[in-house]
Structures are given as C-alpha cells and as structure tokens.
C-alpha cells in the first residue's frame, strides 16, 4: 500500500510509550442505592501490547471498556489516551479522539446491513475527513490484512460470523489507531472460529497494533502476553506472560 495518507499508527507514540493509562478510576451509577461499577482501577497499557482484561459477568468489564474508549467518563480518577487527558476534553474532542486514536471491536459486530464489507470497513474512517475513494482504498488493504480480500464486495451481513468479526476488526484497524479495544470479540463465535480470531488478533499485535481484549473467557485470555483480572470493579491481578 503506497497511500500518501497519514495514518495514526506509530505516530506520535514510540515503542514503550504509554498509550493508555488509568489512575484510580472509579465509576458510580447514580441509582438508588448508587452502584459502584469500578472502584479505584489503575493500570497502563504500552504501545504494542496485547492485553486481556478478564472477568466474570458483572465484574465491571464493559464499564471499563467504555471508560478506556472514552465513551463514558469516570466518576473520579484520571484517564489518559494517546497522551490526552480525557477529563480535560469536551464531548467533541472525545469524538475526535475516538475517530483517530481508538478502534473498537464489538461482540455483536455492528455491521451495517446493505453495505459491502469494503464500505463497512471504510466507515471506520468516516469521521476523519478522509475522502470516500481514499477510505475505500485503505479499507481494501485492511480487509486483505485480515484475510478477506475476496469478500470486498459482499454484503457484510451475508458473511459468516467469523468473517463478520474480521470485517469489524478491519474497521477498527483501518485508521491505524493507537489502541484497539475489543469487547468479547469471540463471544458470538464457535470455538474453531474463535481460535482463528484469536490468532488474527495475535498476528495483528505482532505487526505493531496495541490491542486490549475484554473477555470473560480465561482460556482466551491465556493466549495473550498479559492478563488483567477484574472482579467487583477492582483489579484482581495484572500478570505478564502467563505468569499466573
């Protein structure tokens, strides 16, 4: 790919730089009585890392994903993404941060029906101001990267579950974000397809992408170099290289 477009991946952070950091982050929902979903969570993710955030249902994983992805703000504590202090950013600035620095992969894929795989991936760059032709050009490269070069013009919703998740992953990666947050990316897939997706994630990480996978599945988490265990809104463990 010889695109002249500047992509976010690699700049301005260097290897070892902190892409994302959470410092004593809490999140309380103002229900009666108030529900504390996160209670003082702190950790850092460095550029190029592949991290699993593991926890059972109701442990606060999704809340953590939303806060890491700047879709929600913490009640207290500080979140830094790609060097930007989230608490100091307006809603518009957070949108800009997500458009250029954060990629999302969801369990339900969230692909637009009636659109081709190519256009679904190109939509990953929709809010960056890149013209459609260039978006498609970049999307084609990313689809090739996830092994779907032969599916560019297929309606995304007619693809198999595994293929759909690959399209969703390509969409998250197409802008070259500083960090990709994947929420239960294998949750809707059979075990064989799950393995293939895990392999893809490992391969993408090896090529330089920073990826955080949120999962309830310890077996999947065990594939990744680092696991952050979460339970009842608190970090239970944070281990490297399968040291548990």
């Amino acid at each position, binding site marked *: 790919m010889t695109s002249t477009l500047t992509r976010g991946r690699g700049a*301005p*952070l260097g290897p070892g*730089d902190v892409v994302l950091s959470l410092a004593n982050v809490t999140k309380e929902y103002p229900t009666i009585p108030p529900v504390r979903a996160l209670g003082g969570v702190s950790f850092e993710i460095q550029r190029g890392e592949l991290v699993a955030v593991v926890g059972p249902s109701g442990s606060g994983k*999704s809340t953590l994903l*939303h806060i890491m*992805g700047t*879709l*929600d703000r913490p009640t207290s504590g500080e979140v830094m993404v*790609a*060097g*930007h*202090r989230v608490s100091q*950013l307006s*809603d*518009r*600035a957070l*949108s*800009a*941060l*997500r*458009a*250029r620095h*954060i990629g*999302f992969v*969801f369990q*339900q894929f*969230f692909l*637009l*029906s*009636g*659109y081709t795989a190519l256009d679904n991936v190109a*939509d*990953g760059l*929709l*809010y*960056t*101001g890149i*013209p*459609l032709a260039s978006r498609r050009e970049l999307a084609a490269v990313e689809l090739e990267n996830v092994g779907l070069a032969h599916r560019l013009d297929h309606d995304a919703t007619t693809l198999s579950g595994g293929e759909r998740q690959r399209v969703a992953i390509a*969409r998250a990666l197409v802008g070259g974000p500083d960090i990709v947050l994947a929420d239960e990316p294998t949750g809707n897939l059979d075990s064989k397809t799950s393995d293939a997706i895990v392999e893809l994630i490992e391969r993408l990480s090896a090529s330089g992408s920073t990826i955080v996978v949120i999962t309830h599945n310890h077996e999947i988490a065990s594939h990744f170099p680092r696991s952050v265990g979460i339970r009842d809104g608190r970090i239970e463990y944070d281990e490297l290289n399968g040291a548990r």
Partner: protein
Amino acid sequence: MATTLTPSKLHVADVARTASVGLRTRKMRAALSALGIMIGIAAMVGVLGLSESSKSDLLAQLDKLGTNLLTVQAGGGIGLGSGELPADAGVMIARIGPVEQTSSVSEVDANVYKNDLVPSGQSGGITVQAVDVNLLDTLAGAMADGVFLNDVTAAYPTTVLGAVAADRLGIDDVTGTQLVWLGDQWFTVIGVLDAFELNPDLDRAALVGMDAAATYLDNDNVPSSILVRANPRFVDNVMGVLAATANPQNPEEVEVDRPTDALEAREAADDAFTALFLGLGAVALLVGGVGIANVMVISVLERRSEIGLRRALGATKRHVGMQFLGEALLLAAIGGVGGVLLGYGVTTAYANLRGWSTLVPPIAIAGGVVAALVIGAVAGLYPAIRAARMSPTEALRTG
C-alpha cells in the same frame, strides 16, 4: 507527547450518504412515509395547477368573447311591467356614444317540432326567437353547421337552431333540406349554432329573421332583450345609462346584465373550492409530516446500536443529529419531488381532458418542494435531537 486533536469531520457528501442508510435498509417503510408527503404535495400542486389552468382557460374564453357584451331585457316578475321593452329601445340604445353594436331578440309566441305529427304539448322546451341578422357577430358566436341568417334568408321561412334545440330536434347537420314544423308551417333549417358561452338561452331556441317572424308568425317584433357591444373602456358607463335609455318612462322595469360576470362569479366559486382543497392538501401534508416524525422516532429507537457504533467511530452528537435530520429531509424531499411530479401529471391529464392548456404556477412547484422540506425538517428535528443526545454507552448496551 500528546498531539493536537484534529476535530471529527464529516463531508457533505457523507452526510447525504449516512442520511440514506435508513432509506436503503428499510425501503418499504421509507416509501410509505414519503408517500404521505407525496399525497399532500400532489394535492396542493394539483389543486393550484387545475385552478390556474381553468383560470387561464377562462381568461382565454373571456378574451375571445369579450367582456364588453351587455344584455338589456325587460324585467320579469310581479309588478315589473309587460315583460317587453319599448319598440324603439334598440334604436335609442344604438345612439349611446360608446355603443358599438346592438342586436335585438324578440320572443315569438310559437313552438317548433321535428314534424307536423308531433303532439303540440311536446315542444321540448324549445323557444322561437326573432333575431337581427348581426346576432352571431354581436355574440361572437360560431356555426356548427350551415350558415346564419342574412338579409335575404331572414325574410323567408328559414331558421337557425341553437345547439340544444338542434339536439332535441335530432338535427345534427343541414345538408339536404331539413325542415321543421314551426308555428304551424314548415321552416327550412339553414344552420346549427355552436353553444353560446354567454347566452345559453339562445342554445334552446330556433332563431328566425325579424321579417320572417312578422310575415309568417305574426310577431310584433317588440324586443324582449337587446344585446349590446360597448367600447370596452366605457362598459361601466354604458351599463349605468342603459336602463334609462331603453325605457325612459320606467327604467326600473329594465334589467341590465353583463354575462361575463356570471363566468367570473363561477370562477370565484371555484376559487372557494380551491381554497378548500388547498386546506385538505395542507392537512394531508401535515399528516405526512407526522408520519415522517413517527417513522424517524421509531428509527432512532431501532438503530441505537448504529448510533452507538457511530459515536464509537468518532461521530459527534452533531454528526448523529445531522444524519437523522438528513434522513427526514431526504424522505420529505423524495415525497416533495414525487408529489410535484404527481400533481403536475394529474393537472396535465385533467387539463388535456378538458381541453385546457396545462398551467402549473412555478411558485406551486417550488413551494411544494420547499413545503415538503420544511415539514421534513420540523418532523425530523425531535428524532434527530433525541438521537444526538443518546448516550453512546446506553446505545451500545441496548444493541
């Protein structure tokens, strides 16, 4: 380490593209909601088009007939005299300066039948009128067949039939010798008239010359009505003096009319209907707008996950709002353009049917599309605000 954040940006073409997502993925629903607006706009464009086309037809008609024709007749009714004008009324009227032409009509006490075997009671409502030979000219009438009376034929037992009279007598052409039984003798039909726009009474009459009426039908030729063509610039002035001129003794027994007033009055009545139909069109448009609002509200609820996804992809609240407002505008625009085309089509078809020229005012076309867009904007505003304000986490959670 942190770079300056470049704001999220959505190109205009992409706004249109995202706005069409709902339309492309829910085609039937989009078509039905656009249909509501389409009917409203079509009704309004059609009503304005038909009204304008018929008006232009009327103007052409008035132009052809002239608005300077006046009729003078003896006032009917209780206590209003003999029902006849003075014998010299025509001469007196002709002396009024701006009067260009007069033509007298005298009612003959006779009936006309297809032949002498028809019972006398079955006159078919056809009257016999003695007329001046310049009547056709005065009334700007035309012949359907044959010729009108002239100085020669007016003295002989010949007749020209009005359109309705000819129809009732079963005479549609005058080739060969067509005879009718008129006043107990045979009269030759020399012509059949086209319908008179301004004097329908003559459509139901058999017209004979004044001389023939006196000779064969024993008519006194006292005018029952006089048709007057006045200088168009002085029509009102002439109207003001006609009654007193026709019958100086009893001007109150004279009735003066301008027949084109009736056409104009008919048009005014049509205008009232136009207003009514425009009102109905507006109601249809409003209902169409409510339909769009309804569809958009449902769409926002159904597409929470898409809203969540777009926020995750970097859309601002404004981008999401613009997408849904754009969708409502697109639906309304489709309905508006479709409505204008439909309204124009209906107008053209009906105008052709009536022999009018199609005339849809440009303001109706532009107004139709603008009205649709305004309705779309109003209808889409609330759903768009609702979509924009939806929290991304809530939107994703319900996906």
